[in-house]
C-alpha cells in the first residue's frame, strides 16, 4: 500500500487519482483533521473507491503517524505549507516532515518519495541561458530566497540527512511550475499584478512548466521504479513555452490584460534599488526584490527532464499543447 501525504491538495488529488485509476494501487491518504471527504468524492464520481483509505492524522502526533504507516510500503510526501512567513513555513513543512522521516525509518518503509521544488536549487549562480538539471547544486543562500523556497530547502536537506545517516530510502522529485485547472497559468515566473497592471518579467524566458498529471505520474514512477534510491529528478514537461507566448495566449483566450514589459536588466537594477532603499531606511520597505531572487527566477535558463526519462521511463502522458488547451479553456470559463 502507498501512503500519500497532502493528498487533498492541488497535486495530491492528481497523485491519488492516478494511483487508483491508472496504477490500480491501494492508497492511504493522510489528511489534516477537519478535511472533508468531498474533496475525494469529486475525484471519483461521488463514490470513494475501495482502494482509497482516508486517515486524519496530525504530523505532530507520533502515535497517529505510526498508525498511519501500518502496512505501508511506500510514501509519497507532498504535504507542505504554502502560506505564512519563514517560521510558519519551517514549522509546518520542516518539523512536520522530520516527524514523518523518523516514523518511516522506524517502520522500515521501502521507498520514500519527497516532492521538493525547483526553488531549492542554486539557480542564481547558473549563467543566463545555462541548463538547470539535477547537477545544479543546492542553493548556497536559502535565507536570501522566499519563505517557501527556504522551507523546502531545509526540508530536502533534512531528508538527505535521514537518507545518509538513517537509511531513509529517499528519492527526490523537484517539480518546476506545476499547472493545470483550477490554477491560473500566470505564475510569478511570468510576472506580477501591481497597481492594476501586469508587470511582465518573464519576456522570452522559457517557463519550466509541468502539467499536474505529468508531475503526479513522475512522482508515482519515482515510488515504483526499482533501484533509484538516492536519486534526484527534475520535473518539467517537453516543449516548454516562453513567458511571452503564455501571456499572449492568456490575453487572447482568457481576458485582456494591460501589461508593462520589464526586461531582466532593468528588473535587476530595480532590485538593487529596492535593496539600497531598504538598507538606507532600516527596512521601511522590505527587500522583496533582490538581485539574488531576480537571478534565480527571471535570469532566463534552459531546463531538462532527460534523467527522469532515462531512469524512470517517464514521459509526459499529456502533451504541452493539450495541457495548455485544457488550462486556458478552464480559465476562460
Amino acid at each position, binding site marked *: 500500500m502507498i501512503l500519500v501525504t497532502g493528498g487533498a491538495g492541488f497535486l495530491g488529488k492528481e497523485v491519488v487519482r492516478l494511483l487508483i485509476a491508472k496504477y490500480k494501487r491501494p492508497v492511504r491518504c493522510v489528511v489534516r483533521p477537519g478535511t472533508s471527504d468531498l474533496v475525494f468524492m469529486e475525484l471519483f464520481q461521488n463514490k470513494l473507491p475501495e482502494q482509497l483509505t482516508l486517515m486524519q492524522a*496530525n504530523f505532530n502526533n507520533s502515535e497517529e503517524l505510526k498508525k498511519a504507516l501500518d502496512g505501508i510500503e511506500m510514501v509519497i510526501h507532498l504535504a507542505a505549507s504554502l502560506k505564512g512567513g519563514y*517560521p510558519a513555513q*519551517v*514549522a509546518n513543512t520542516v*518539523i512536520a516532515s522530520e516527524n514523518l522521516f523518523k516514523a518511516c525509518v522506524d517502520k522500515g518503509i521501502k521507498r520514500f518519495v519527497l516532492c521538493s521544488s525547483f526553488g531549492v536549487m542554486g539557480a542564481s549562480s547558473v549563467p543566463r541561458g545555462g541548463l538547470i538539471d539535477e547537477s545544479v547544486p543546492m542553493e548556497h543562500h536559502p535565507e536570501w530566497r522566499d519563505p517557501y523556497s527556504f522551507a523546502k530547502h531545509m526540508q530536502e536537506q533534512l531528508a538527505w540527512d535521514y537518507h545518509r545517516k538513517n537509511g531513509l530510502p529517499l528519492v527526490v522529485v523537484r517539480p518546476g511550475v506545476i499547472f493545470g485547472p483550477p490554477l491560473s497559468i500566470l505564475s510569478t515566473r511570468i510576472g506580477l499584478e501591481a497597481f492594476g497592471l501586469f508587470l511582465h518579467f518573464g519576456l522570452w524566458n522559457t517557463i519550466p512548466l509541468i502539467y499536474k498529471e505529468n508531475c503526479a505520474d513522475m512522482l508515482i514512477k519515482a515510488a515504483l521504479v526499482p533501484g533509484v534510491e538516492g536519486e534526484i529528478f527534475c520535473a518539467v514537461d517537453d516543449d516548454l513555452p516562453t513567458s511571452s507566448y503564455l501571456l499572449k495566449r492568456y490575453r487572447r483566450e482568457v481576458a485582456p490584460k494591460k501589461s508593462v514589459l520589464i526586461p531582466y536588466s532593468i528588473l535587476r537594477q530595480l532590485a538593487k534599488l529596492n535593496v539600497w532603499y531598504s538598507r538606507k531606511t532600516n527596512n*521601511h520597505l522590505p527587500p522583496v526584490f533582490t538581485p539574488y531572487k531576480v537571478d534565480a527566477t527571471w535570469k532566463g535558463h534552459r531546463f531538462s527532464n532527460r534523467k527522469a526519462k532515462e531512469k524512470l521511463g517517464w514521459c509526459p502522458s499529456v502533451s504541452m499543447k493539450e495541457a495548455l488547451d485544457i488550462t486556458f479553456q478552464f480559465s476562460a470559463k
Partner: protein
Amino acid sequence: MKIAIVGCGQIADAHIQEVQKIPNAVVVGVCDLSIHLARQAALRYQVQGCYTDIKLMLKEVQPDVVHITTPPASHAPLAKIVLSYGSHIYMEKPFTVNLSEAQDIVAMATATGKLICAGHNYMYDPAYLRLLAACREKKLGDIVHLISVMGYNLFGPFGSVSMGDPLHWLHRLPGGLAQNNISHPISLILGLMPGDTIAVSARGYRLRKERFQDIRDNFFDEIRANLSTDSTTAHLVFTSKVRPVQTCVTVYGAQGAACASLDSRTLRYIKGSNLPGPFAKVQWSYLDAKEAVREFMGNVGNMAKARLHYFSGMHELFTQFYAAIEGRQKMPIQMSEALRVTAVMDDIVRECKKNDGEKGRQ
C-alpha cells in the same frame, strides 16, 4: 546591550529586526525547542548563538535582556528561569495566562531587582502617543468615555495557521484567540483610564461558521466588554468579522473628542460646530475633512521621509526599555501596569465564560 530571544515563531522575526535597528543592541542568541526554528532565525539574522536549551543559552551568552516570544502558557515558567539567571525580560503579550502567574513573576523580578516589560507595544504607536499627549495636555478635557476596537483576520498569516491545527497552543488558552490579542485594546484603554477598581462586564460570540466539529469551533471570535471606574467608562470591541480589519481608539472628552487609528497612523479630532441649524452640518463635515487632509499630508511626508515603519511602536518600546535598564529613564510600562491589564483580561475571560450560552452561538 546583549539580547537573547526565546521562541523563534512568527513574532520573533519582528523582535530581532527591531532590536537590530537599535544602536548598541545586539542579538547574541536565539533559542527554541525546535532546532529547525532556532536555526532558521540564526541563519536569517546572522545570530551567533543557536540553542534548544534555555539554561545553556543563558549560561553561555549571559544576555542583559531576554525577549520571551513563546506561546503564553510558557511565559511564567520561562520568566522564572530567566530571572534566576539574572537577566531582564521583555515579555511578548499576553503577559501571562492569568493574574496569579503575573503576580508571581512580578514579585520575583522585584525581589531580584530585575525589570519585566510587558509587550504592550501598541501603546507606543505614534498615533496613540499623540492621543496620549493630547489627553495629558487636557485638549479634550476630562475623559468621559473610550472605545477601543481591535480587528482580527482569521484567514490571515497567523489566523490560518491556528485554524489549520486543532493542536495549536491558541486553542488551549482559557480565553482562546481573544486572550492572545485583547491585551492590546485593554492596554490602550487602561493607558487613559487610571485606577485599580475597574468593573468589567463582557460577552463572547462565535460569528464564524462551524467548520471542523472540534476544538477549533469553540473559541470566541468576537468579544464585547464594558469597563468602568467611578469617573470613566469604556467599551472594548474585539472582532474577527468587521472589515476592514482595524485597530483604533476613540476618546470622548468633556471638551472634545479624537480618534487615533493605528492602521492609518492618524489622529483626527472631532471638532464639531458652533453654527446653527443646517450650517452646523456643513461646518462639521468641513472640519472633519480638514482633519483628514492634514493627516493625509502628514503621512505623505512621513512616507517620503521613511517614517512609516510597521513596528514603530515596538521599536520605541524596546528603545525605552533598554534605556530604563541602563537607568537613563523610568520604565516605559510599569510592571504594575502589566498586572492591571492582566487583571482586566482575567475578568473579561471569566465574564465571557459565565455568559456563554446558546444565545452566543450563531
